[in-house]
C-alpha cells in the first residue's frame, strides 16, 4: 500500500485545512519542524484515522477530548482523509460528539506508532507496566478470555460430575437396602433389580385400582351416613321448635277469639286504603260520615294491640319453613345415600359368593330408598368387616407396587447416572487436558514471541552499537507473576542485568526504539504504516548515522515510515547527503500560527539548492553560490578526510575549514584518488563500470578556486569585489561536479562502506571510491 496524500481540517493544530502530499516512490517521509509547528498533529491525525487511539492525547489523562478540534473552528468541521493506492479513508467528528466516525467503518490501513513517551514508559516502568506498554503489540487477551471460559467449563463439569456421583451413590445405597431387605436374592443386586424392573405390575395395579375404588365408595357411604345423621337431628330440632310456636299462637287465639290473624290482616289493609286516599269523609262500607285522621288513629291503636298475635303468627311461619327445608335436605341426603348403596352393591356383588355374609345386602338392595337404607343398617356389621379386609388387601398391594416402583426408579437412576458419570468424567478429563494445552500454548507462544523479538532487538541494537560490549537483550515473562515483562541485557563483563541501571540515557533510548521497531516489524506483513513521532532526542553523530541506516534497512518491512523530528542533526544528515537522502521524502513545517495553521514545504538537499542557484538565469547570487559551495565542499572533504584518516591541524572541536581540509589530502592519496561509476545489470545489481574519473584534477581546480569561498561567500572585503562572476560560477560548478562524482544517484548517500577491502563504495554499489586507505 502506498500513501498518496493526507488532508486535515479543523483537527488540533490544523486551524486551516492542510494537505500533505506524499512522494509514494519513497518509503520514508521525514517531517522536520521545531516544536509547536504541527508535527504531532499530523501524526495524531493518522493515528486517529487508522486506529482507535487518540495519539499524543492518550498520554495526557486530563486532556479534554473536545479539544481534538482546532481552536476557532466550529463543531462538525473536523475531518481527516487519507488517500492511498488501495482506497480513500476518512474520519470526522460530527456535532458535539467526541469520538470519530469512520468511512469505511472498518478496514483502515494497519498502523503502528511510537512516541518518545512510550519509550520512557517501556524502559522506566515496572515489569507489569512494561507489559501494558507493549500490550498493543503482544495482546493475547482474546485467547486468555477463551482460556478462562474453558477453565469455567472445567469447573462446571467437575460440579456436575460431583452431583451425578452423589445421585448415583444415593440410588445405589437405597437399592442395596431394598435388596438386603429381600434377603440379597440373585447374588447380585443389579441382576436382581433388573429382574424386578421387568416384572409386569399391570394386574397388580388394576387389582389395587378396584380395591381403592371400593374403599372410596365405602368411605363415601360412611360420610353420607354422618351427613344424614346431622340432617336428621336438624329436622327433629326444627319440628320441636315449630310445635312450640304453634302452641303459643293457639293459646293467644283462644284467649281472644275476636282477634284473629284474619282480622289483623283486614285492619292493616283498611288502614293502608284510608291513608292512601287524599280526601275521604265517608266510610266505604256503611257510608256514614267519618274523619280520616280519627279513623286512621283508631286503626293504629287496634293493630298495635294485636302485635303479639302478629309475632306469634310470624314465628310459626318461620319455623314451618325451617322444618320443611331441613326435611328436604334430609331427603336429598337419603336419596344420595340410596344411590351410593346401589352403586356399592353393584361393586361388591361379585364377592357375594366368596363372602356369603354380604348376600342379604347384595340381594336386598333394589330401588326404594327407605328399604335400601334399612338393609344397609341391617348389614352394616358385615359390610364393615368386608371393608377391613378390602383395606388390608389394598395396603398390601400398594406396598408391593411401591416397592417395585422404588426398585425400578433406583435401578433406572443407577443405569442412567452411570452413563452420565462416565461421560462427565470423560468430559472433565478432556477439559482438564484441553486447559493444559491452551494455557501451555499461550505461555509458550508468548515466550517464543518474546524470544524471537529479543533476537531481532539484539540484531538491531548491534547495528547501532557495534563492538560496544552491549547487547544480549532478552525480553521474557516472569513466571512468578501474571503479565510481568522483564528486560535484561549484557554490559561488558556483566551478564543478564537490568539495562536501566548501567546503560546511558541515549543507549536506553535506542534500546526502546529497537524493541518497538522489532515488534512493529514482527506483526507487519509489509502493509503497516509506521509512525515514529519525535523518538530521537539526542544521539551522537556515529549512532545517529547507524540508526538512520537501520531505519532504511527496515523500511522494506513496512508500507511507509513517517518520521517526525525536531532534531536538526538528523535532518541535516539527509540535507548534506551524509544519509541516503534520495530514499527520503523530506518535508519541513514552518512556523505555526492560528491564522495560518500548519504550513508544509518540500525540503531540499543542499546540493539541489546550489544547482538551482547556478541554473537561475534571472539572477546570479555571487555570495550565496560561494557560501553554499564552500559548505558543500567542507561536508564532502570532512567525509573524505575521515575515511582516509588524512592529516589536518589538530583542533579542539574538529571544526576544519575548506583550506585545511583540501590541504589534508596528501600527494600519495591524490595520486591514486579516483571514482568508478557503475551501471545496473539485468538483475538490478551495479556490475559494469561506465565511467572512471581521476579526482586529482578536480581537487586541484578546487584548490585554485577555494579563495572564492572566503572572499565572496564568507566575508565583506574589497578583494571579494574583484572576483569575477566566471570564477564564482566555476567554483560552484566544480563543487557540483565533485559532489556528483561522489554521491550515489540512486540513494543519495556517499561511498561509506568497505565491502571488499580494496575500496569504498556506496550502499547500492553505484560508485566505488579508491583507494581504501591513504597509501
Amino acid at each position: 500500500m502506498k500513501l498518496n496524500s493526507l488532508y486535515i481540517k479543523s483537527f488540533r493544530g490544523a486551524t486551516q485545512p492542510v494537505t500533505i502530499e506524499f512522494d509514494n516512490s519513497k518509503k520514508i517521509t521525514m517531517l522536520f519542524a521545531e516544536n509547536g509547528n504541527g508535527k504531532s498533529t499530523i501524526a495524531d491525525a493518522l493515528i486517529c484515522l487508522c486506529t482507535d487511539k487518540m495519539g499524543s492525547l492518550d498520554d495526557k489523562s486530563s486532556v479534554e477530548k473536545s479539544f481534538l478540534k482546532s481552536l476557532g473552528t466550529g463543531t462538525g468541521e473536523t475531518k481527516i482523509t487519507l488517500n492511498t493506492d488501495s482506497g480513500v479513508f476518512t474520519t470526522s467528528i460530527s456535532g458535539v460528539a467526541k469520538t470519530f466516525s469512520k468511512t469505511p467503518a472498518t478496514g483502515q490501513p494497519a498502523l503502528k506508532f511510537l512516541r518518545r513517551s512510550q519509550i520512557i514508559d517501556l524502559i522506566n516502568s515496572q515489569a507489569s507496566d512494561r507489559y501494558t506498554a507493549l500490550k498493543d503489540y503482544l495482546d493475547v487477551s482474546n485467547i486468555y478470555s477463551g482460556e478462562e471460559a474453558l477453565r469455567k467449563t472445567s469447573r462446571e463439569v467437575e460440579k456436575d460430575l460431583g452431583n451425578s456421583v452423589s445421585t448415583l451413590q444415593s440410588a445405589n445405597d437405597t437399592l442395596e437396602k431394598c435388596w438386603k431387605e429381600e434377603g440379597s436374592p440373585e447374588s447380585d443386586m443389579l441382576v436382581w433389580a433388573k429382574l424386578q424392573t421387568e416384572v409386569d405390575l399391570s394386574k397388580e395395579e388394576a387389582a389395587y385400582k378396584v380395591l381403592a375404588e371400593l374403599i372410596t365408595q365405602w368411605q363415601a357411604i360412611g360420610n353420607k351416613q354422618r351427613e344424614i345423621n346431622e340432617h336428621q337431628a336438624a329436622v327433629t330440632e326444627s319440628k320441636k321448635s315449630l310445635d312450640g310456636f304453634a302452641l303459643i299462637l293457639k293459646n293467644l287465639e283462644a284467649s281472644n277469639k275476636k282477634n284473629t290473624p284474619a282480622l289483623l290482616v283486614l285492619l292493616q289493609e283498611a288502614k293502608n286504603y284510608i291513608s292512601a286516599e287524599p280526601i275521604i269523609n265517608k266510610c266505604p262500607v256503611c257510608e256514614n260520615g267519618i274523619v280520616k285522621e280519627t279513623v286512621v288513629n283508631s286503626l293504629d291503636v287496634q293493630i298495635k294491640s294485636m302485635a303479639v298475635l302478629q309475632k306469634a303468627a310470624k314465628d310459626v311461619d318461620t319455623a314451618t319453613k325451617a322444618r320443611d327445608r331441613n326435611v328436604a335436605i334430609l331427603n336429598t341426603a337419603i336419596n344420595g345415600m340410596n344411590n351410593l348403596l346401589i352403586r356399592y352393591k353393584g361393586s361388591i356383588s361379585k364377592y357375594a359368593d366368596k363372602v356369603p355374609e354380604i348376600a342379604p345386602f347384595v340381594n336386598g338392595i333394589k330401588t326404594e330408598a327407605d328399604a335400601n337404607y334399612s338393609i344397609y343398617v341391617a348389614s352394616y356389621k358385615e359390610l364393615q368387616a368386608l371393608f377391613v379386609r378390602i383395606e388390608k388387601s389394598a395396603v398390601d398391594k400398594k406396598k408391593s407396587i411401591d416397592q417395585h416402583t422404588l426398585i425400578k426408579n433406583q435401578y433406572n437412576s443407577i443405569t442412567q447416572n452411570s452413563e452420565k458419570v462416565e461421560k462427565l468424567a470423560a468430559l472433565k478429563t478432556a477439559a482438564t487436558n484441553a486447559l493444559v494445552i491452551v494455557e501451555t500454548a499461550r505461555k509458550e507462544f508468548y515466550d517464543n514471541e518474546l524470544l524471537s523479538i529479543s533476537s531481532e532487538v539484539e540484531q538491531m541494537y548491534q547495528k547501532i552499537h557495534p563492538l560496544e560490549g552491549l547487547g544480549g537483550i532478552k525480553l521474557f515473562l516472569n513466571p512468578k507473576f501474571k503479565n510481568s515483562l522483564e528486560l535484561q541485557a549484557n554490559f561488558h563483563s556483566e551478564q543478564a542485568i537490568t539495562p536501566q541501571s548501567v546503560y546511558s540515557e541515549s543507549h536506553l533510548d535506542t534500546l526502546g526504539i529497537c524493541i518497538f521497531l522489532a515488534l512493529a516489524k514482527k506483526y507487519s506483513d509489509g502493509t503497516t504504516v509506521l509512525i515514529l513521532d519525535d523518538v530521537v532526542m539526542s544521539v551522537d553523530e556515529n549512532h545517529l548515522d547507524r540508526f538512520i541506516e537501520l531505519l532504511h534497512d527496515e523500511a522494506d518491512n513496512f508500507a511507509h515510515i513517517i518520521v517526525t523530528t525536531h532534531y536538526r542533526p538528523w535532518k541535516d544528515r539527509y540535507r548534506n547527503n551524509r544519509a541516503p537522502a534520495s530514499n527520503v521524502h523530506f518535508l519541513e513545517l514552518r512556523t505555526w500560527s492560528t491564522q495560518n495553521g500548519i504550513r508544509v514545504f518540500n525540503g531540499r538537499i543542499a546540493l539541489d539548492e546550489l544547482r538551482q542557484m547556478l541554473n537561475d538565469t534571472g539572477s546570479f547570487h555571487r555570495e550565496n553560490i560561494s557560501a553554499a559551495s564552500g559548505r558543500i565542499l567542507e561536508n564532502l572533504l570532512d567525509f573524505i578526510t575521515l575515511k582516509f584518516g588524512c592529516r589536518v591541524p589538530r583542533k579542539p572541536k574538529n571544526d576544519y575549514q575548506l583550506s585545511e581540509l583540501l590541504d589534508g589530502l596528501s600527494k600519495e592519496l591524490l595520486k591514486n584518488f579516483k571514482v568508478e561509476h557503475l551501471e545496473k545489470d539485468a538483475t538490478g545489481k551495479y556490475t559494469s563500470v561506465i565511467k572512471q574519473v581521476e579526482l586529482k584534477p578536480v581537487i586541484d581546480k578546487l584548490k585554485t578556486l577555494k579563495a572564492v569561498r572566503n572572499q565572496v561567500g564568507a566575508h565583506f572585503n574589497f578583494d571579494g569585489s574583484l572576483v569575477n562572476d566566471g570564477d564564482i560560477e566555476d567554483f560552484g560548478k566544480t563543487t557540483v561536479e565533485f559532489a556528483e562524482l561522489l554521491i550515489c544517484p540512486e540513494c543519495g548517500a556517499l561511498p561509506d562502506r568497505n565491502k571488499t577491502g580494496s575500496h569504498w563504495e556506496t550502499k547500492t554499489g553505484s560508485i566505488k571510491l579508491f583507494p581504501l586507505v591513504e597509501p
Partner: protein
Amino acid sequence: MNNINEILAKQIVDKLKEENLISITDKQLITKLANGTMKEADWKIALEEIINRPKVDTERKDETE
C-alpha cells in the same frame, strides 16, 4: 495482516485436534478463540463431540492411524 490472536488460536486448535480432544474442522473455533468470543457452551460442544462419538468410530480411526 495476521492478528497475533489468530495465529495463536490456530496453534491451539491444531494442538487440540492432534490430541484428539476436538474434531471441529471448520474455522469457527479459531475465529471464536481469536475474537475472544469463545464461551463455556462452545467448549462443551467442541469437547463433547469427540466424547459422544460412537466408540466403534474411534476404534476404526485408531486402526487406520
